[in-house]
């Protein structure tokens, strides 16, 4: 029998069995839907991780403080360590100190409680901050403790709405003291700067923040940038030595982390999640495939007489095998396509509920491919059973 006629016979059959075929397909639909969604979720979380880290140089090394017991034994980082690192750590290119606190920021009658970061000039480059207007905090600002501020874009928009360029030269009040705005940052989106979202923050000179904004109990962090990625580990060693020289045993109150390893571990956990979800999808598909196999077995049983008739009028083994196998493949391919179609309906809904999904054509192909493979694999056994039926037994089957 030629292929077209085999297919035509199958389609006549499927048409006569629509509801049963749909039920058969359900497992495959769900399986293929799951594969697409899982890969889209995985891709989405990879993308969020990468986005979060765009503002981060991989060479970034951070000294975080506050790991000791609070009390008199507590030691703090200061500008002295920054100077020491600048002079004694050849692997380090740039270094800055930063101290964070929350404060009320006012502009005329507008008020907002927000994060204020006291920083030194190099923070801008280390954290990939970009200016929309004006300048960043300079070394001189720190030296003379100038009351100047650089606004994150969200804060600038809050106070100046559309016309954020007007911010430059205007004055805001932070914790009751007036500051001149000297710059507005470009939008950065989610960032991995520790404890701070630049878009929603205000930056002032470190010396000013220490004096007027944060209390005595706040610990500054030091952020450094290695000359390049290969200098990160020697940079960490150099900084550890400097901390030990200064604080001796108490240097254990600090922890040094580098961005590269943070990025890697975040990516790795996103990958693990994708892999986990993917294996769930495979299980779903296998269950769907077993469903197909069962329905095909029932179908072979139900159609035993038909198989006998076809054999009696001259159908060869191969004809019967292809008929049942192609039926399984067609059903599962249609199921795969329906699954992909329903995923395109499901993804906007997931996005609406803030599950980030990024569909890929790889995901679609994989879902389709796996559906067809499942159908073929689980369809083969019932099909070969049907093909090897003895014509006389099949004809006499009740």
């Amino acid at each position, binding site marked *: *029998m*030629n292929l*077209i*006629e085999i297919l*035509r*016979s199958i389609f*006549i*059959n499927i048409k*006569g069995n629509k509801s049963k075929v749909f039920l058969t397909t359900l497992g495959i639909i769900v399986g293929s839907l799951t594969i697409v969604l899982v890969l889209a979720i995985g891709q989405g979380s990879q993308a969020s991780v990468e986005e979060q880290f765009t503002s981060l140089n991989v060479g970034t090394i951070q000294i975080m403080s506050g790991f000791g017991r609070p009390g008199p034994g507590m030691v703090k980082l200061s500008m002295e360590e920054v100077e020491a690192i600048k002079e004694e750590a050849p692997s380090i290119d740039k270094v800055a100190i930063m101290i964070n606190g929350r404060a009320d920021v006012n502009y005329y009658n507008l008020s907002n409680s927000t994060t204020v970061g006291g920083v030194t000039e190099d923070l801008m480059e280390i954290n990939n901050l970009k200016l929309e207007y004006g300048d960043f905090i300079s070394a001189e600002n720190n030296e003379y403790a100038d009351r100047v501020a650089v606004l994150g874009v969200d804060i600038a928009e809050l106070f100046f709405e559309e016309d954020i360029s007007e911010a430059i030269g205007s004055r805001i009040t932070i914790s009751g003291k007036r500051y001149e705005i000297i710059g507005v940052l470009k939008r950065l989106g989610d960032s991995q700067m520790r404890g701070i979202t630049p878009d929603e923050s205000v930056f002032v000179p470190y010396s000013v923040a220490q004096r007027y904004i944060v209390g005595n109990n706040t610990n500054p962090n030091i952020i450094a940038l290695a000359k390049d990625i290969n200098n990160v580990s020697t940079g960490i060693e150099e900084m550890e030595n400097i901390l030990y020289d200064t604080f001796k045993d108490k240097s254990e109150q600090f922890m040094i982390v580098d961005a590269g390893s943070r990025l890697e571990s975040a990516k790795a956990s996103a990958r693990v999640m994708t892999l986990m979800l993917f294996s769930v999808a495979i299980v779903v598909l296998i269950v769907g495939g077993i469903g197909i196999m069962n329905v095909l077995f029932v179908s072979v049983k139900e159609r035993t*007489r*038909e198989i*006998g*008739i*076809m*054999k*009696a*009028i*001259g*159908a*060869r*083994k*191969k*004809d019967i095998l292809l008929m049942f196998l192609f039926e399984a493949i067609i059903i599962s391919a249609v199921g795969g396509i329906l699954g992909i179609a329903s995923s395109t309906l499901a993804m906007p809904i997931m996005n609406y509920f803030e599950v980030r999904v990024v569909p890929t054509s790889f995901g679609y192909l994989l879902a389709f491919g796996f559906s067809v493979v499942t159908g073929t694999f689980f369809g083969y056994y019932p099909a070969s059973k049907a093909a090897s039926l003895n*014509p*006389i037994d099949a*004809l006499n089957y009740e």
Partner: protein
Amino acid sequence: MDNKLIYMKDIVKYYKMGKSTLTVLDKVSLEIQEGEFVAVLGPSGSGKSTLMNIIGCIDVANSGEFSLVDEDMMKKNEDQLAYIRNRVLGFIFQRFNLLPKYKAIHNVAFPLLLRGYNKEKAYSRASELLEKVGLGDRMDHKPTELSGGQQQRVSIARALVGDPKILLADEPTGALDSKSGGEIMDLFMQLNDEGNTIVLITHDLQIAQKAHRIIRVKDGKIYA
């Protein structure tokens, strides 16, 4: 060279049931010539259906000689037998055995589709045959939409569509009322007049008497 289409010598068919053996055909020999209309007559359980199935190549004898059109059937593999069923034989069953989901025309065309004919060619030949058996206006009906007599005509058309050497009919009127049964028998006689070789199985002497020759089967043996 004679015209013997079917040749059987000492055909034995038995079924093993546990430890006991049930012999259904016990050294059956027969010859059927081209153009004959032969009735195989016997009560139920006599082995006549088994004989028919072996001639029809849907069952295989345990021993003996059996050839169709001078070809040894005892040595054919399954696909070769399928080829014989498709080209040499036309089968007509008591219960019609039509494919329920297909229209009459598709049922009739099916043996040709199995040969690899395209749909147009197979359908045009099938519609000729349906016209011939008087169902020109029922081609697009499914079996369930046809009466018993009409279904049997469809199955006769299907048996004829591939120009077989031998028509095998297993109790073709068994499931029909006497009127449509009579019509079917008239059709068989007409087909025989046109030169078709027919082997008909029946338990009904009246029907058997319409054939040219009667072969009586009882307890797995032939009584001429």
